């Protein structure tokens, strides 16, 4: 493949994540509104929100240090970097050699680390509360993530993202494989928890004592807030892309031709739409869990992930 097309594909993936993520957020909000009998804002509203925030001045607490100002940039950076690694459209990602799925998870963790520090930096009780809860949930979700990855790896024989997709795309009766579905369920629950969606955290709330992610970023404003929100959207986009492409690998381009890339684009759009609908459905039908019931949910997802691994051991 020529240098030019390599760069073009990398850029394509990057642009998809950069500009697709606000749309995804908008679609979820719209679907939720419709399910709840509201009309809801336009699906392009998140773009307008980001634009508005970019044009506003930044107000920073005088207690903060450079960590607070640096974090939004780092957060967006980790997501952009992940966009180059995750097989969004194709498994032949030009910069996919930078890391496998485990490295990817640690890259996300790097963002969480800084965001939690930024929450503490202003010295407000809300920020501290948000950070404390965020890292608690991230820490408790980690075993599920890795065990689910173990479940995938031992069936695919690899932890590289392209290898997993190649292997699963070739497996007959994939959707009837119990271990596969269990790993998917576990990963889905973790994706909800990591992205601060219901029933773990409510992205729409600003009620002081229940919010987690929103409490942590309470002090942000202007372009810094725009970056934080945008990064959160990209994280959701990347997680859902991973879920779609790893567990339902149909349509992902195995070789890079204009035709396969177009198919991959359409397939991804359909899959993401379905996931957006699923999330909207979950968020309409379940209430937020009390904070101290979240570990139970995560213990449940861990059990499911462990079952996936055990099943794959015993039932070849």
């Amino acid at each position: 493949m020529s240098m030019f097309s390599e760069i073009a594909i990398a850029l394509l993936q990057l642009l998809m994540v950069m500009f697709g993520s606000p749309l995804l957020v908008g679609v979820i909000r719209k679907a939720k509104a419709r399910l709840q009998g509201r009309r809801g804002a336009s699906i392009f509203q998140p773009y307008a929100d980001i634009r508005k925030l970019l044009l506003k001045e930044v107000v920073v607490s005088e207690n903060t240090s450079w960590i607070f100002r640096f974090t939004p940039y780092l957060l967006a950076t980790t997501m952009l970097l992940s966009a180059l690694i995750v097989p969004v459209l194709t498994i032949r990602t030009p910069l996919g050699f930078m890391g496998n799925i485990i490295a990817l998870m640690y890259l996300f963790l790097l963002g969480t680390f800084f965001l939690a520090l930024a929450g503490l930096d202003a010295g407000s009780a809300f920020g501290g509360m948000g950070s404390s809860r965020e890292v608690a949930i991230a820490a408790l979700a980690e075993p599920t993530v890795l065990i689910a990855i173990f479940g995938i790896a031992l069936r695919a024989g690899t932890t590289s993202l392209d290898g997993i997709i190649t292997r699963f795309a070739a497996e007959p009766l994939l959707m009837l494989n119990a271990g596969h579905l269990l790993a998917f369920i576990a990963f889905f629950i973790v994706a909800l928890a990591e992205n601060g969606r219901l029933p773990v955290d409510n992205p729409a709330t600003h009620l002081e004592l229940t919010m987690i992610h929103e409490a942590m970023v309470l002090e942000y404003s202007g372009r810094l807030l725009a970056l934080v929100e945008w990064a959160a959207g990209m994280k959701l986009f990347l997680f859902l892309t991973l879920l779609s492409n790893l567990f339902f690998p149909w349509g992902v381009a195995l070789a890079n031709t204009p035709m396969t890339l177009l198919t991959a684009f359409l397939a991804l759009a359909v899959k993401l739409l379905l996931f957006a609908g699923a999330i909207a459905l979950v968020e309409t039908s379940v209430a937020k869990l009390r904070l101290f019931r979240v570990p139970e949910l995560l213990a449940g997802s861990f059990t499911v992930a462990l079952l996936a691994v055990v099943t794959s051991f015993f039932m070849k």
Partner: protein
Amino acid sequence: MIIDATVMFDLFVVTLACFGAGALGALVTARSPTLARIVGHGAALIGAMAALAFGLAGLAGGGMQLNLPDLLPIGGAAFGLDRLSAFFVVVIAAGAIPASLYAIGYTREYAGKHSLAGMGFAFNVFVVAMILVPLARNVLTFLVLWELMSLASYFLVITEHEREETLRAGWVYFVMTHTGFAALLLGFLLLAKATGTMHFVQWQVAAAHLDPSSRNLIFALLAVGFASKAGAIPLHVWLPRAHPAAPSHVSALMSGVMIKLGVYGLVRVGFSWLGVGPGWWGGTILIVGAVSAVLGVLYALVDADLKRLLAYSSVENIGIIMLSLGAAVLFQASNLPGIAALALIAGLYHTLNHAAFKSLLFMGAGAVLHATHTRNMEDLGGLMKRMPQTAAFFLIGSLAIAALPPFNGFISEWLTFQSLLLSFQISAHTINLIFALGVAALALTSGLAVACFVRAFGITFLALPRSHQAAGAHEVQWTMRAAMALLALACIVLGTAPSLMLAPLEATIFELMSAHADVQFNLTAVVANDGFGWVAPLWLALALIVFLMALPLGLRLLGANKQRRSYETWGCGRALQTARFEYTATAFANPFKRVFALLYRPVKELDIEFHPESRYFVRTIAYYNEGRLIFEDALYRPLLRMIETLAREARALQSGNVHGYLVYILIALVALLILTV
């Protein structure tokens, strides 16, 4: 590359001479504390540099043999150098260089209060003993050096002996280290008796012919001895007491380096002295490692004493290292030598990495202690603005220990994960399940470590100071900062260019178990098992930097508003934010306390004193939320009580009657005769 033996010998002699000069020099210059401080630690610094050169030369293939038959009875003193020993010399020297540099500035505060000559002497003895332990080649040499190391560190721990707490910590350390020593002694003697030689080198061949039961017994004794030095749970009780009590440069050495000699012993036991062990050895080490990792980080997570937090986190990291050692033994027993070598590389790399970031963190904590005179996180905060450089170094250490890319902890943990995940190639359900457990434990550990170091850094350095000591803190003296800068640099280099160290490690492992590790690497990338997993840390780091620079530029091109205004933190409309509004270290840890209540068994207490006029006004509120230490409560207390009872019973034997004692001697003599014949 073969390095000339005389060069090696010269380096060895220079190393010894420097430390000797440092020890004596400190004593000679005892009159002047300043001189003693600089001479003692300065010589140690040069000695450690020579040791580093010696170790690196050893890693590059230089060997050394040295027998001094007259120095010690029973076989004399025997030293030798292979790559594994050289690697540990490198680890120790890499910890000792910054520690000595740091000590030059740090010990200034002790002048007039404590004997700097004594400290300098003990420091030199401690470091040189540590460097010599991995070089020891027979039982007696090893044990003498081991004991020397323990004693020197004991005296360093009780430097601040005017405090009750320090003396207690020293006592616990003394007892535990000698219990471990007893186990080692017994194990060594049994092994020497069974193989008929005191020389380490001859053991591997001879051990293959041992009968399984005595081999297992020897393994158990040696493993207990080394694990107690490493601080594995449940033999860890001395560690969270002794490490915080010692002066910070000594804490850095003890946590960063000394406990690694326990790891050295475990590697020797598992892979060379006793030959290839059965799978259950590995399973045991792996499970002990998993438990140590999870419990260690859980205890670290709730501790408000900055140095004790770091000490508990050492227990965690030893757990991670043991996890990979255990995995290596299991793979070896399952006939997968390539993956075994990979796991061992991961463990040894983490050993080096931990030496770098734990020393860095202890020095950071020492700097904080130096500047504020408190280790209690509830009194700290806001140091980011007062000690910006220390804060930056501590941040790098925190990122590295939380295993985040692109720092060194990430690489070793990533390698560990790769080796654990490769366990699916073994087809034995029990072993598979043990590995699944290991994966889950390591994942939980790394998640909790992130939480732990967000808390450690965030509460200590960010937002507003919580006490006037913290408010009045200043940046520390330059040698201390230079030491931290060195280690921070090491964390970055080892994280972005792992091949620098992976190549010699690969050679080391090959020499140890004659199997090539299942890993390929070049300057930019590490690939495990033919594409099972890969990571390119240098590229990750570069991409991070590129995006970090491109983003602000992009925003500017988009026409984002550049204005920034400083204002108070939002306080629900309440004006005047003070430090009392901040989240505390205790509050931060509370979700974990609740989730893992089964482990912490927290005792809550709320004392409210109401105003005499009205119960609507409160005069004071005191809230205690102490955790209990289950190992101390459930294991050591009953054990101590039992020993006490036994001792009381034994007092009956002390009749004070000479004839009685003679009878004992006679019985002992007869028993010995019967046993030996």
